[in-house]
């Protein structure tokens, strides 16, 4: 069994989740509470990765991250290394791929908070920042947890994008979904089946967790 691929998958999912939580929270806050010109454009942009085939995302990522692309080029002149086919590269890909799944439940949770609670916080002297940390976040824990679980699962399942920008390098970019693909290709059905099977309980547990969080937030 390809433990290395499972390890890379879980590491990728974990790193993606942690980073996305930090990135998505302010975006979700902006979308939930502010009106500004171009808001619906920003919103559509955030959700775009959900609506594009992973290969389209992969295609554009290759273009910008390849040594000739502007990000890849900048990265290479800074570090001397390539961005594509590295763990960092697939982390970036995975983050972009999963953004909508982080922003959407957080935005929903933030929107559900009673406006009057925020007003009370302002009257009590809290700045917007303090209100965000002391009122909005503690009252959105369900939504934030749901976002984290969704992103984690979605990153575990990422395939198309990673196939294009990852290059299946063992221990670095070869995640379990790609290992399964390769195992099936090489007709190593047993290995494919083992990895595939190992996903079912993990995913299942997380899904039960999501449902639980949703029910809790409803009451």
């Amino acid at each position, binding site marked *: 069994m390809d433990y290395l691929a499972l390890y890379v998958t879980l590491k990728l999912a974990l790193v993606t989740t942690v980073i996305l939580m930090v990135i998505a929270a302010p975006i979700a806050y902006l979308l939930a509470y502010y009106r500004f010109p171009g808001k619906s454009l920003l919103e559509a942009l955030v959700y775009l990765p959900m609506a594009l085939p992973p290969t389209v995302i992969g295609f554009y990522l290759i273009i910008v991250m390849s040594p000739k692309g502007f990000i*890849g080029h900048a990265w290479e002149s800074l570090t001397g290394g390539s961005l594509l086919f590295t763990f960092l590269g697939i982390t970036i890909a995975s983050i972009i791929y999963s953004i909508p799944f982080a922003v959407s439940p957080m935005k929903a949770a933030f929107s559900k908070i009673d406006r009057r609670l925020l007003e009370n916080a302002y009257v009590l002297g809290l700045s917007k920042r303090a209100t965000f940390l002391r009122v909005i976040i503690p009252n959105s824990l369900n939504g934030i947890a749901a976002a984290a679980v969704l992103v984690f699962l979605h990153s575990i399942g990422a395939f198309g994008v990673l196939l294009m920008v990852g290059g299946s390098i*063992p221990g670095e970019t070869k995640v379990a979904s790609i290992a399964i693909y390769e195992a099936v*290709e090489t*007709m190593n059905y047993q290995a494919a089946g083992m990895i595939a099977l190992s996903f079912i309980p993990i995913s299942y547990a997380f899904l039960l967790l999501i449902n639980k969080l949703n029910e809790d937030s409803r009451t």
Partner: protein
Amino acid sequence: QDKISVAVAANFISAFKEIAADFEDKTGVKVEATFASTGSLYNQIKNGAPYDVFLSADEERPALLEKEGWTHGTFIYARGKVILWSANKAFCKSATWQDALKNNQIKKIAIANPVTAPYGTAAKAALQKAGLLGTLQSKLVNAQDIAQSFQYATTSAVDAGFCSMSAISTPQEQGGCYYVIAEAPVITQFACVSKKAKNPVCAELFATFLMSDHANKIKKKYGYH
């Protein structure tokens, strides 16, 4: 621990696994392999994928890499043949593979993507030479590489699939039958070592091992000559 990473064309998977295992045993150098179609691997290398050694299924792409300065030189490591494989033994009762394919029972035939996989290109050329390409076009299922083509054939997802000779030495082959496609050009497979290999000594060591008698024996077992 020393290690090298090798990009391997999909037709060579089975042979490679055995060779790599022996190499690891003998030298203690770990071999990490990535399998895909030749075109796909070439594309990755062009975009900066950090492979130390590239085992292609054709002559053209290693040559291009040499021209582009990725490698110092290329060498032939195997010659392969295209076969037409079926899980159904009745398929091989016809006199020729052309007749077998003309049978109306045949609904689907797998072929590796002719653009990215040299074995696919060769199979397509054979079909064309036999004048069958037009009539069979609607029955062709495009696999991403030669390995997927064989996989479709072994699961009976297709009635027959163009594969490489190496497929017949795998456990999955048991119970099937095949025609050798003589009309398909022999495929000359070239390899090359990256200039930027992280561990040039080990990479060269592997290249040498690949051409050793020991390795040749394994290649022969898998139908390469």
